[in-house]
């Protein structure tokens, strides 16, 4: 008896968990709240879940790619691929990011793996900034949201690319080392034995992805919740009334981009709805800062990098976007 149990223990455990979940499911169909929740709390919950549901596929793709990098890419590969010259490395990382159709939810686990494997921190940041900002879907949605006008879409990509390079360069001056969290010891010289059969490595990839998901998941959830909270309780109207001059309108649109934490593929439509209130430079700052850094992303980065590094890079990005937009405003 106990031998049979032993042999089938995994199947049995699986069945137990399955049963539990199905019980929960059937319970949820019949469940009625014993007390009435206020409508605004339900709004909050709906927006929170919708951000999460929207982000989950991209996060899963992100953790799977991270798993592949962890198992299949060795540090030697990285050494061969990344140019030794710092400037070349920055340009290359920004170009790869622009070609790589990433989304800001999925990119953090990827860059964490890359940095772990020895990609210099500035190159990883360049990749992180252009990845979600410059890709075909974002270009198309921006083009359409602004009345099939190439100008905004073009400026968004062009300026975004330049800003990403500047930020990556500044990072290369200020920050050294991997900047990964101290609590998670980083690799020294270990790489996975290449000789492992493919099936084992594939399996390991998936195992890594699961662990990565649990690492990242909690920060994603907190971020989504905060963004939903802001949307439910912070009135945009007071912000709109506060914005007059260029400085304040750029600052307001940047603040909105940061706290709303919209997906880069959808933010163009929201940006467009503000275009009658604010100058183009402010709208652009919204469109460029959002994909690079937002509340949800900051929290996910905090799960990976040192707090000081995250704050530092946030400050660098905000300052660069702000200054660039002030200059652009003079020219437009």
């Amino acid at each position, binding site marked *: 008896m106990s031998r049979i149990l032993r042999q089938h*223990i*995994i199947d049995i*455990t*699986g069945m137990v968990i399955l049963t539990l*979940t199905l019980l*929960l*499911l059937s319970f949820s169909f019949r*469940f009625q709240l014993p007390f009435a*929740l206020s*409508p605004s709390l*339900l*709004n909050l919950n*709906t927006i*929170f879940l*919708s951000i*999460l*549901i*929207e982000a*989950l*596929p991209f996060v*899963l793709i992100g953790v799977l790619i991270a798993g592949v990098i962890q198992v299949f890419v060795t540090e030697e590969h990285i050494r061969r691929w990344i140019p030794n010259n710092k400037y070349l490395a920055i340009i290359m990382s920004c170009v790869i990011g622009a070609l790589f159709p990433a989304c800001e939810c999925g990119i953090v686990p990827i860059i*964490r793996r890359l940095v*772990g494997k020895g990609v210099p921190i500035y190159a990883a940041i360049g990749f992180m900034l252009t990845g979600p900002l410059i890709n075909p879907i974002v270009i*198309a949605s921006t083009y*359409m949201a*602004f*009345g*099939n006008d190439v100008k905004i879409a073009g400026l968004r990509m062009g300026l975004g690319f330049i800003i990403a390079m500047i930020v990556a360069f500044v990072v290369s001056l200020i920050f050294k080392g991997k900047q*990964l969290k101290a609590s998670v*010891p980083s*690799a020294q010289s270990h790489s996975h034995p290449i000789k492992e059969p493919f099936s*084992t490595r594939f*399996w*390991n990839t*998936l*195992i890594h992805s*699961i*662990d990565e*998901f*649990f*690492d990242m*998941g*909690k920060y994603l*959830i*907190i971020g*989504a919740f905060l*963004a939903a909270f802001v949307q*439910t309780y912070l*009135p*945009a*109207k007071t912000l*709109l009334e506060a914005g007059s001059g260029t400085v304040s309108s750029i600052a307001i649109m940047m603040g909105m981009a940061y706290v709303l934490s919209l997906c880069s*593929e*959808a933010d163009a*439509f*929201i940006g467009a*709805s503000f*275009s*009658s*209130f604010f100058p183009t430079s402010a709208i652009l700052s919204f469109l460029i800062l959002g994909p690079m850094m937002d509340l949800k992303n900051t929290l996910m980065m905090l799960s990976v990098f040192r707090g000081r590094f995250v704050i530092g890079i946030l400050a660098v990005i905000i300052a660069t976007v702000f200054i660039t937009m002030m200059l652009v405003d003079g020219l437009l």
Partner: protein
Amino acid sequence: MKFHVQHAVRAFILLAFSVMLFKLHFTDEITKFINPKYQGLSQSASVLFLILFFIQITRIWSAKRHTHHYHCHHEDHNHDCSHDHGDSPFNSKKFMAYAIIIFPLVTGFLLPAKVLDASIVDKKGGMAILSNQNKEKKEINSVQEDLTIEHNRITDPKIISEKEFEQFKRTLEQSSTIKMNDDVYSIFYGEISTDPEKFKGREIELKGFVYKEDEFNQDQLVISRFSITHCVADAGIIGFLSEFKEAASIEENTWIKAKGTLDISTFNGTELPIIKITKWKKIKQPKQPYLYPIDVKVY
């Protein structure tokens, strides 16, 4: 044989995410969260979670057969994966982490999905945004409406060609009564707010929920809709200022179907179309309360 509680919890969480997404799709509640265009993506997420669950259950019991799962070679406790494998001892910090991950599962399973209401219109800027939409479109002086073509088939998201789009516009110009169906709602909305002069005096028929602001007159309200690009977090607002005697008696968030004549009015100094309602009735909230923009193929 050793039982790993944390791995069991993780397996349960993965399965629960899969089942939650499945449930939302199964009951069609998913349309209250995301644009149906992206349903496929979240369905694949559900399948992925299920696959990950099947992988995760093999880690719950450690036996000799499965030693190769300890892929990270934890020699000298200096493993290189820099993430937690769920093997380290359980403490309060970890408890918090799991509590956070379980939180959306609890609210997702137990709380009903709510359709966004007038309070969100207010948070999104309300009339300030609505009354400026036409101005903005004039400035751009182009076909902003292109992208906000709506359609009402949940299961069959489609991309319409420019030709069909032109056809919609022709219908708008020729029909005696402008019928604001979900398919055409925002094309028409865009056309009308870009050039209210052109449509002055035309009859219009539409439905939407009631939104009010303090500055409105007693007989004014907005008949509004939300347009969802991706998920409800990026909902945009669309709405016509309307005028009729009984307006004061109708509460916010009531869904109404109305018929009236288009006219032009000013609100806070901005010119905008207004509907003088002649006939109206309360209706139940439609099954599909949101509008979903679809893309016009641009050649």
